[in-house]
């Protein structure tokens, strides 16, 4: 494992993370304002990418053109894609989500799933089921050598553009009138309405900004990987959602942090030598078991008053941490049980699940020997991260509604 390798993996991890962040911001802003997961956001992103690729195809951009003309074509395609995607986002919000506002939680979510399938199928019908290729003449093919590793210039362009957009978003949210209205709406939609804020406009604006960012993300993905397909949005959407949850959904900086962590975790997970990873998980498992069997029960017992600490009760708690699943079921099914027991059972079960996960990962990496991880498992990394975060800290790393908003 050389430094060069780690450096180039880091750069590609940050690049992927930035792209996730552009999508995750759409999820997180909509959630912040409406408390609703816009399931169709992944498809909005795909639409942006496909539109950009199609418009680039129309411009007939080729290697024969001078550089500045190619950049103009790219810029034109970007603007067209962003406008089309913003229009799509607004249309979805107006037609499918606004009529459902105020219904019970499950209903808008179902509508979002329906919209997601509909969009995906329409994209197949309109653009065809095959990958749509972006003309290679607009993709910078140069490499730079940095710290001994060759890195695509495009990666730096992606990171730069994403950072610019995020700065712009921060400016809008913090310092403009509409940003103030957004923050107010996300704090309390009814109070905001009473203060004379047109919450419908604010919500539409949120959808528009989210869709625009997703369209830029779509173009960048298409340039980075060379092509995009009608179903690309499913997996990107899920990962971006994971990132948003990881950072704390509804929290704008959280979405960026979560995306970076997820991007790096994925690239390291797939790129690094697996023998190393197996030992990493074995070490994690050892630490986890030590914590579950020795530290956690002792800590838990500190919550009991000295006079209540009978040896029998101590034994019971110790056993609870050893046989967590059995106790969790027993405690869940018991009619009455004391609070400490219930909390401990839940905690012990979480620890066990974490340890089981570590053990499974160790076995998987052991069985795979020194081969690279199949890219299929890459998605599992993201899903596992999401499940762990949701189970142990559903509010995410930076909390759901950050101080910045208040």
């Amino acid at each position: 494992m050389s430094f060069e390798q780690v450096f180039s993996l880091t750069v590609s991890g940050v690049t992927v993370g930035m792209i996730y962040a552009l999508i995750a911001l759409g999820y997180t802003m909509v959630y912040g304002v409406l408390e609703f997961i816009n399931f169709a956001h992944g498809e909005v992103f795909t639409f942006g990418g496909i539109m950009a690729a199609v418009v680039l195809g129309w411009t007939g951009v080729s290697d024969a053109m001078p550089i500045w003309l190619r950049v103009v074509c790219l810029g034109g395609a970007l603007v067209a894609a962003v406008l089309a995607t913003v229009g799509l986002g607004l249309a979805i919000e107006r037609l499918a989500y606004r009529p459902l506002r105020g219904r019970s939680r499950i209903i808008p979510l179902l509508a979002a799933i329906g919209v997601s399938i509909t969009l995906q199928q329409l994209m197949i019908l309109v653009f065809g089921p095959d990958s749509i290729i972006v003309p290679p003449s607009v993709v910078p093919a140069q490499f730079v050598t940095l710290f001994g590793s060759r890195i695509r210039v495009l990666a730096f362009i992606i990171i730069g553009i994403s950072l610019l957009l995020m700065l712009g978003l921060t400016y809008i949210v913090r310092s403009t009138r509409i940003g103030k209205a957004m923050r107010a709406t996300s704090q309390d939609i009814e109070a905001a309405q009473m203060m004379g804020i047109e919450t419908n406009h604010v919500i539409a604006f949120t959808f528009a900004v989210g869709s625009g960012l997703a369209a830029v993300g779509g173009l960048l993905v298409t340039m980075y990987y060379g092509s995009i397909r009608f179903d690309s949005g499913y997996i990107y959407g899920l990962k971006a959602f994971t990132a948003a949850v990881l950072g704390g959904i509804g929290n704008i900086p959280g979405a960026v942090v979560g995306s970076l962590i997820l991007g790096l975790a994925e690239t390291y997970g797939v790129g690094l030598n697996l023998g190393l990873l197996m030992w990493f998980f074995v070490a994690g498992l050892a630490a986890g078991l030590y914590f579950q069997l020795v530290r956690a029960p002792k800590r838990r017992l500190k919550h009991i008053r000295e006079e209540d600490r009978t040896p029998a009760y101590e034994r019971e708690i110790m056993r609870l941490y050893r046989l967590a699943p059995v106790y969790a079921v027993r405690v869940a099914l018991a009619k009455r049980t004391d609070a400490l027991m219930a909390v401990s059972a839940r905690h012990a079960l979480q620890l066990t699940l974490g340890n089981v996960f570590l053990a499974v990962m160790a076995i998987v990496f052991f069985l795979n020997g020194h081969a690279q991880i199949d890219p299929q498992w890459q998605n599992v990394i993201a899903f596992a991260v999401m499940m762990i975060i949701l189970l142990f800290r559903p509010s995410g790393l930076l909390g759901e509604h950050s101080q910045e908003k208040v």
Partner: protein
Amino acid sequence: MAKSGGKKRGPIATALGRVPRWVYLTAALVLAVLFPLLHSAGLMDMLWIRVAIRSLTFVLLALGLNVVMGETGLLNLGYVAFFAIGAYTTALLSSPSLGFHWSFWPLLVLSMVFAMLAGLLVGLPTLRLRGDYLAIVTLAFGEIVRTVFLNVTSITNGAAGIPAIYTPNIFGWVVTEPPQFYYLILFFVVVVVIALTNVKNSRVGRAWNALREDEIAAIHSGIDATRAKILAMVISAGVAGLAGCLFAYYQSFINPTYFLFMQSVIVVCMVVLGGMGSIPGAVIGAIVLDSLPDVIRATFSDWLPRVFGPTFMASWPAWLQSFFTDFEKYRLLLFGIVVVLVVIFRPEGLLPDTLWRSETHEEDPREQEYTRQTLFDIDEGNQDLEA
């Protein structure tokens, strides 16, 4: 069901509502039993028996998902994972791939047990989460299960799947032909419908509905929320395991592409269309959505040409012709649009469940009243305290 109306019902609906329910049930059952005879009489292609078997499998899945999504109000987007676990259990223990040849009943039970264990495993930690998070976690679980089946090639044979699953032998009755499978699956559909109807009308079912309507009120009425939710999750997983077992036997070959995320979404569409929380709704929703594409295709490429002559569509524009004859391509588009329209315009579905109807139309006080009285036993005198 009859109580749900009350307002704005046309004369036909009223007349249909007066027919006792057992008449409908008997008619449906008789039609279902007589259906394969059309084939024996030479009136119908074998294709339709296969369509019916597929629809009945989806009926089982929709019934199972209805428990968790309709009755309890928890959205499960990875439901196909339990189906896959049931199918893989059967396939691995009753095919030459690992050399086992278990018989039908133990495998049926084992498939259900494994699916239920998976349901318990997902349910225990995740049911504390809010509804929309639960949807995403179950979705992730579904993808993980599929990825595992796809990548643990030494056992599951990866993408190539498990071929040559043995035919079931039920007390000497060897099930090989599609009509036999049809009756087998029909039998289990009837059993599951009866069982779930009884559960729905029991204490447990009322607890589920109460949790769906108002979790806080339900907990304060003494319902053990965790227990009820886990029970819902486990029962629905069990039904999916059962469906998976039958599916594996019928297909006699399975691979991970049968268990894509889209399958879960399709089952969700069926439950939504039929009416969340309604057992007849789940059955009708599954049958309609699953067989509609085939019916449309056959109508325009087979039945109508027979009636109006083979060239009746010749004057139509080409895209319209291909729209009807290759309807399969538009199947998922249809599902997506159906869900959006149903959710916006008729959230209670085609055959609504009484209580769910009352939640989706909040403006009707009579129905809210009905909900309160059925679920929470709030009598008239205490009404003032609430306001």
